[in-house]
């Protein structure tokens, strides 16, 4: 079983394998054909994902989350058996699979093997359900948090000192550690290297616990630019977005919007440039960026053919 991802997406492939309770290794290659990803399937369930949720990646994630030290990851073979490691591995796998499910370039090859045990047990059907829920939550959060540009900060001292003792997870503490009154939600998510929607939801919970408050982003043209795109005023949107990007060149979301504005204005090559920058600024959404760039290139070629 094999084929290109632009004909049959990874979601469908995994669902087929689950329904057939198949076992084996599904090798998936995205835009970078030299970087294959192996999804190990046992009777339809995903039991391993390499290298994204392998042992090395899991230990690195634990160290990055300040749950173990780098030296401990080398010295303690029992670390991977701990609940924190299982959580980290599952999270790494879900995030990687969510990205891969959006790929429209690349291919997949499935090799049947006897069922093998693995550290994961993920149902593709459940993953798809989670993806849909997460996307819906992401839209709601983006709306509530000014497209993730709201700026979290600690509440006033007297308020911070009062109230019930909150139950905070290690990720909550890392989020609090990244709060400096200047970073917006998107930047905080980037600083803690966690999915933006999950970080946004936790920031909202910290707001409800009277630890953080959220400030609306300073008038920077971002919101106005998106309104301009919605209204079809693409030149105005592009101008506003370039002005913002001149000051905040690392803002991936603005580069994505600039690409949309450029497409609207008919400048596909400029759009490709913007999305390339978006891909570099937000590697977690590289799949989306590549797909959009591919679409823009197709348009460029189509227009060139039409001119000729």
């Amino acid at each position, binding site marked *: 079983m094999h084929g290109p991802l632009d004909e049959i997406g990874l979601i469908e492939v995994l669902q087929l394998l689950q329904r057939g309770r198949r076992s084996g290794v599904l090798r998936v290659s995205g835009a970078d054909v030299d970087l294959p990803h192996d999804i190990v399937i046992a009777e339809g369930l995903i039991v391993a994902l390499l290298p994204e949720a392998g042992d090395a990646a899991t230990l690195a994630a634990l160290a990055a989350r*300040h749950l173990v*030290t780098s030296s401990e990851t080398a010295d303690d073979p029992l670390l991977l058996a701990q609940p924190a490691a299982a959580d980290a591995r599952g999270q790494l796998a879900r995030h990687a699979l969510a990205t891969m499910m959006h790929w429209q370039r690349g291919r997949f090859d499935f090799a049947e093997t006897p069922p093998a045990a693995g550290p994961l047990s993920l149902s593709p059907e459940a993953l798809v359900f989670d993806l849909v829920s997460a996307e819906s939550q992401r839209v709601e959060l983006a709306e509530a948090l000014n497209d993730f540009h709201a700026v979290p900060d600690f509440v006033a001292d007297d308020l*911070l000192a009062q109230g019930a003792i909150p139950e905070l*997870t*290690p990720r909550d*503490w890392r989020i609090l550690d990244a709060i*400096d*009154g200047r970073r917006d939600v998107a930047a905080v998510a980037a600083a803690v290297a966690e999915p933006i929607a999950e970080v946004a939801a936790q920031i909202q919970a910290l707001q409800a616990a009277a630890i953080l408050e959220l400030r609306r982003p300073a008038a920077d043209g971002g919101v106005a630019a998106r309104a301009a795109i919605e209204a079809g005023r693409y030149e105005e949107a592009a101008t506003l977005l370039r002005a913002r990007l001149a000051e905040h060149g690392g803002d991936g979301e603005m580069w994505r919007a600039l690409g949309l504005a450029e497409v609207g204005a008919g400048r596909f090559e400029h759009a490709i440039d913007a999305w390339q920058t978006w891909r570099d600024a937000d590697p977690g959404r590289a799949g989306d960026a590549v797909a959009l760039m591919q679409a823009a290139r197709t348009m460029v070629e189509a227009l060139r053919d039409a001119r000729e």
Partner: protein
Amino acid sequence: MPAARSRDAQIVAALGRRLAAADATTLTNFAWFAARRGAHPAALEAARRAVTHGDAPRAAWRALERLAAGRTDGMLLTADAAEPAAPEPPRNPLAAAVSAHAQGQLAVAEACYLAALPQDALAAAASNGLAVLHEQRRERAAADAAWQHSVAEGNVAGRHNQALAMLRRGLPHRARANLAPLVVGAGAPAVLRFLAGYAALADQDPHAAIAILTTPGLDESARAQFTLGLACERLGRHDEALVAIRRALLMSPWYAPQVWLLQATADAALTEIPADLGESGALAHTADVLLSLGRSLLQTGHLGEALAVFDQVLTQQPSEPAALFHRGVVLAKLRRYGEALDDWERAGQADPASELGDASLRHARSARQLATLFASR
């Protein structure tokens, strides 16, 4: 950026007030957060409080150890939500200090002792622990000051340790003077009576040592019986020495007379920390008492047992001159002159300038003659 630092300090202080009564996991994570914001004292205080909980996670001890040593690297967050079957009441900081002290984590112990000092009920015992810690670091002035406070409160462990420190500093007469008024009467604490006897022996007064060590209640103390045996042997009372040392050996194979005493709570049993850290100290004391036992066995004609005891010493310390000398005597009495000759020659080589070395070499010459005589018989 001073303004940012100041804001960080305010945030840490406010959040710290809110989390004052939080569980060990939350306090540990707050310590991590405070340390990263540069608020070292608040971080240290949170870590101290975290470890006073019975279910403190490993990360709490790690944080305290590092913060107490002035470090912030290697601190960790924890997700451990320990849920003991029956919730344990929070331990006091003194219990945490004694536990850390017994494990040799001196920086952690110091931090916890300091946390316990402000509590009236714990202050005397905490001062004693701090004093021991200072003495171990050879900070004698600080140790004396801390013991002064502890002794003023009538803390028995403090009195014991203060006298032991005098002994270890080579001042046995001062140790005896300190202990003398405390060991009058049968109701005096056994740990103090033992130490008074041990101090008398160290002060070359075996008669006084025997008088103290034979008071009621000390016959169940291995270290008291070992010491009594040594005192009797010093006076040539070999039969009594044998009885005491054999009784002691039934209770413990080791003679460790010098221990620091710590107390985790007002009603807790005393925790002992060997004053001579590691095995070498205990071995040296045990070798002393075994030598004494061997000499008594030799003097009372128990040659086979004496030989076994000296063998035991020489297994641990193969060049111990006194053991070699006395084993040579036992072997000569058993007419094993060749082996006696070997032991005396080794004893003479080990310490040729001493009286024992000189005697060994003279005995070796005699043994050589006897060996030749027996060989030509």
